[in-house]
């Protein structure tokens, strides 16, 4: 990639951001994409999925270019790409059953009723319960509380205290989850998104003590749940909650360090990731880099923070976001790789004409409200051309 001038592939008119259809809602976009019979070849993908042992390398290669929407295979492809499903088809049924029951066990274990816990403690301590019968009177006997447990306890290890703290977090998550994609019927309507996912981020945090729930995790859940819930296979659709949880964990594990506050300034934290993006831009388009960071002094944190931590879910309409995720998830090096950064870099380069002409205010406005491209593949194709 020459540093002078614009790379050849960027000159194609396919990628010029023309007048955008800003008023089209998420739902309409999805409908439009779903209705169009895909010109790309669904057959190789179906062929791969129907093999006894799926060739992951081939699958990744094809998925990078985007998975056709109408084919109903995205849920399965994503599960394969994230390693949720093994590549041997014969093992799918048993794996799924195992994972789904594991999830149920988590729920039972983590959503604890302190009343019941106290009761069990009492029973093992041999405390008796007074039974109220029709006759007899007298003072009710008092007993000592077991292990200092009582509902108003402020002790750190108290089951009751834990319960109330967890309830607060779940309430906060619930509020955020309910506000996810309010313009889309799937999320705001009577669907189970809110109910099924109010606790998923909470379980993740319980299982990873270094992470606290951060607002935005609900946005990462949304594409996963949407895709899995719309699986043409009824069983799979019904188990969307459990499948979403495991895949959510997998997705975030690549980016976990970005959510850990203590790592913010470290080599693996979010600041360092943003610096890498900056360096990547400089390598591919020094002129643009210089204009943005030196001339107009736009700190990449102002826009890249949200791009990276929320995996671009906020920058594109929902349908395009799913295509971008096809590419992100298909990277053979997994999510820890630089694919996300390369997509971000491409997003910047695609706007270079406008950015080079703009000042601090107009550029910042543009980057924080990224204009919809004419085709979702425009952002992802450059990255596969770039190579390593």
């Amino acid at each position, binding site marked *: 990639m020459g540093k002078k001038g614009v790379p050849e592939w960027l000159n194609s008119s396919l990628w010029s951001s023309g007048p955008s259809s800003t008023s089209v809602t998420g739902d309409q976009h999805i409908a439009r994409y779903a209705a169009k019979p895909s010109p790309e070849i669904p057959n190789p993908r179906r062929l791969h999925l129907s093999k006894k042992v799926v060739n992951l390398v081939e699958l990744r290669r094809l998925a990078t270019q985007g998975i056709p929407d109408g084919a109903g295979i995205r849920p399965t492809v994503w599960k394969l790409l994230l390693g949720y499903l093994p590549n041997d088809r014969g093992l799918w049924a048993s794996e799924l059953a195992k994972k789904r029951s594991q999830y149920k066990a988590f729920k039972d274990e983590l959503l604890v*009723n*302190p*009343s*019941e816990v*106290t*009761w069990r403690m*009492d029973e093992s301590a041999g*405390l*008796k*319960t*007074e*039974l*109220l*019968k*029709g*006759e*007899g*009177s*007298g*003072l*009710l*006997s*008092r*007993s*000592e*509380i077991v292990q*200092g447990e*009582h*509902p*108003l306890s*402020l002790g750190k290890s108290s089951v009751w205290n834990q319960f*109330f703290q967890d*309830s*607060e977090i779940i309430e906060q998550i619930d509020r955020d989850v309910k506000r996810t994609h309010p313009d889309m019927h799937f999320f705001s309507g009577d669907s189970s998104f809110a109910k099924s996912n109010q606790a998923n981020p909470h379980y993740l945090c319980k299982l990873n003590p270094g992470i606290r729930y951060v607002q935005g995790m609900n946005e990462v859940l949304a594409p996963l749940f949407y895709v899995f819930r719309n699986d043409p296979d009824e069983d799979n659709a019904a188990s969307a909650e459990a499948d979403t949880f495991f895949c959510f964990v997998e997705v975030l594990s690549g980016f976990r360090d970005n959510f850990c506050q203590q790592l913010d300034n470290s080599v693996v934290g979010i600041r360092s990731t943003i610096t890498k993006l900056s360096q990547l831009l400089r390598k591919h388009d020094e002129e643009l880099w210089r204009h943005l960071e030196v001339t107009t002094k736009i700190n990449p944190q102002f826009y890249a923070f949200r791009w990276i931590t929320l995996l671009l879910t906020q920058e594109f309409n929902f349908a395009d976001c799913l295509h971008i995720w096809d590419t992100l998830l298909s990277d053979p090096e997994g999510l820890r790789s630089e694919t996300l950064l390369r997509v971000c870099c491409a997003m910047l380069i695609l706007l270079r004409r406008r950015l080079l002409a703009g000042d601090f205010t107009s550029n910042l406005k543009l980057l924080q409200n990224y204009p919809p491209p004419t085709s979702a593949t425009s952002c992802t194709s450059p990255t596969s051309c770039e190579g390593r």
Partner: protein
Amino acid sequence: MVLVLALGDLHIPHRASDLPTKFKSMLVPGKIQHIICTGNLCIKEIHDYLKSLCPDLHISRGEYDEDARYPESKTLTIGQFKLGVCHGHQVPGHPMGDLDSLAMLQRQLDVDILITGHTHQFKAYKHEGGVVINPGSATGAYSSITNDVNPSFVLMDIDGLRVVVYVYELIDGEVKVDKIDFKKTSTTASAH
């Protein structure tokens, strides 16, 4: 799992200035679902404070309450239990011959658990299939009988047919918590 706070006989500001600090630090909003107050708050500020802990507040009138609109008695159903509250100053013979008079009140109100005050002494006893609980005085205010009153209140955990009554008392500056455990035999109406 429903948490119900029962307290009363605070007598603020006439006999006490406030709840004990150690009690206040434990009574935080968001944990309690219902409050039952036997009466004698006595002023609106205390009403507002209790409301801030929990919006579902039930108060019966004590003889010194400034707000004359509180009812003489009140009943409510929580889960499988019918509860009633009445301050108790109206009951003849109370606080002397309390058992029978209160039993009559309980039958009148037709409740499983009667919460009553006036004596400023914690007490919990069963009588003919029902339970009477007196949470005492939450501020330790003196009563007509005695000056030696330990501040106390009660928190009930109603879970199905079972109730665990946690008794919180301030004794020599420390909060002591005890519990009483009882359960009903069936889901039908109260024993009366």
